[in-house]
């Protein structure tokens, strides 16, 4: 079956390729950006949840995005927390961001007391080496070690000290870097302060009660339930979500304009062909359909190329930056594709309307 729209795609190769590329980039932009955000949030959330504590106890003003915090509280609070009804164990943790060793914006370091961290559930599984013992011992997880080509007994300089990697951890629990609590406190000149307490309750049913008890006893301090951490993190990352929406809207707008321009120049160039269609007695609907079909075909090819490009980008990024996780979900694949199609359709409406309402004789005599 002859199809003018499809035939014209291959006839006007440069325009077709440029339009397809623009749409593909738009799709890739959305998928990679969303995938990056989702991947990072997911990764952070699952690592915190995998620690196994029930509650994270935070100082006033702190954010549940732990890496953003610069708030400390006195370590003495531990004694009052542990005596709160329903609390089984407490582990004080000092957190610190280092911009070393890769990752988006750096890596978070946990300063922990190994025994106490273990008591709240923080089961650090060693793949090789041993646990923290000496002052300048350091544990890193397998992913960070792989990304930086680190192995046991290698030395890493952070916080103006030379640390020795004594153990490689299974990835996915808490931070990627662990050092002794006191070492981190001293390095930061805050020997009596900590960033947060992980709290383990005596039974899972009590978690809610314990949290409200803690909030009552320590006005202004915050409790974050481990169970809802992922959700709360996503919500507190509102700014990021708005940023994603803005980028998505811009991307959609760009592909709308690309199609609009591509189809508009196309109908100008093909004015005479439209005149011929009119002489043949084509209805307005037929002409609109021809133009819209061409735009939709362009969009579909662009979207499919965009999917390929996105997966290529995903593979490339996770090879080049092993600490970065990109999650491309079926939902976003569908959404990005649908938005691409809709913008392509809308972009072709005005040109197709213009084409359909051309004067037959003028169109036919167009040079």
């Amino acid at each position, binding site marked *: 079956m*002859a199809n*003018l729209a499809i*035939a014209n795609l291959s*006839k006007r190769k440069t325009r077709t390729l440029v339009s397809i590329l623009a749409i593909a980039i738009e799709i890739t932009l959305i998928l990679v950006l969303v995938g990056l955000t989702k991947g990072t949030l997911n990764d952070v959330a699952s690592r915190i949840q995998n620690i196994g504590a029930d509650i994270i106890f935070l100082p006033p003003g702190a954010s549940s995005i732990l890496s953003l915090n610069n708030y400390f509280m006195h370590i003495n609070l531990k004694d009052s927390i542990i005596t709160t009804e329903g609390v089984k164990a407490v582990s004080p943790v000092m957190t610190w961001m280092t911009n070393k060793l890769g990752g988006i914006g750096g890596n978070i370091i946990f300063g922990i007391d190994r025994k106490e961290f273990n008591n709240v559930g923080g089961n650090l599984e060693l793949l090789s080496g041993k646990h923290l013992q000496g002052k300048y011992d350091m544990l890193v997880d397998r992913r960070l070690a792989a990304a930086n080509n680190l192995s046991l007994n290698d030395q890493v300089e952070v916080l103006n000290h030379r640390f020795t990697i004594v153990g490689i951890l299974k990835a996915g629990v808490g931070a990627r870097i662990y050092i002794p609590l006191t070492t981190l406190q001293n390095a930061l000149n805050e020997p009596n302060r900590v960033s947060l307490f992980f709290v383990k309750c005596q039974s899972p049913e009590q978690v809610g009660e314990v949290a409200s008890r803690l909030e009552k006893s320590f006005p202004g301090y915050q409790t974050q339930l481990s169970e809802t951490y992922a959700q709360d993190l996503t919500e507190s990352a509102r700014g990021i979500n708005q940023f994603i929406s803005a980028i998505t809207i811009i991307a959609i707008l760009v592909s709308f304009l690309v199609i609009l321009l591509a189809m508009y120049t196309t109908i100008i160039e093909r004015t005479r062909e439209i*005149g011929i269609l009119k*002489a043949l*007695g*084509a*209805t307005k609907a037929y002409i609109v359909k021809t133009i819209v079909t061409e735009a939709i075909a362009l969009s579909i090819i662009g979207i499919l190329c965009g999917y390929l490009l996105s997966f290529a980008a995903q593979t490339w990024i996770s090879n080049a930056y092993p600490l970065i996780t990109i999650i491309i979900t079926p939902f976003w694949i569908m959404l990005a594709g649908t938005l691409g199609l809709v913008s392509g359709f809308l972009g072709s409406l005005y040109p197709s309307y213009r084409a359909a309402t051309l004067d*037959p004789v003028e169109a036919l005599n167009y040079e």
Partner: protein
Amino acid sequence: MNKILQTENLGKVYRVGKIDIHAVRGVNLNIEKGEFVSIVGPSGCGKSTLLHLMGGMAKPTTGRVFIEGINLAKINDSERAKIRREKIGFVFQRFNLFSALNSQQNLEIAMQIGCNGSVDHQRIKEIMRLVGLENKLYHKPLELSMGEQQRVAIARALINNPLLILADEPTGNLDSANSYKVLYLLKDLNRNLGQTIILITHNQEASKIADRKIEMKDGMIIFPS
């Protein structure tokens, strides 16, 4: 007598700036079924304008056009489009084939438009045989000679079995050998199939192929007076 096209005091005025150009004035015509009529006249005398008016491509400023008794001025754009796809086959000086499509596909498009989307490849083959190009079905316009392109265009005009073929300078871009081929093809269509044809040309010689000759000048018919 079987009148298929009539014009009554047909006129078309173009306004360019402050000047009115009377491209067609007071044309009264009667075309009967099976006629082969030529309209001849010098460049700029209004032949193409008249053809567009008769084919429902343009609206007259004055007067009326009837096709099988239907007043084209009384119907809307989409009804005029329907008249074009069902009753008229246009042939143009510049062939006006779709350059991205081969001969068969060019005819398919015309068939899609004229027959509510249905395409009959057998008929396409027959019509291509009729114009002597049954072996050029898969050639694109640029792979055909000019004369062949015009014969494909004639095939396209014929494909929906039109009441009337309106040909505007169909030999204007052709050398004399190809011109004769096209003119005799039209003649055959008229003779053998009874196809009604109006041929527009500025070439007196070419106009002789028709059975009836109408001469135009300055937008008016000067012969027969």
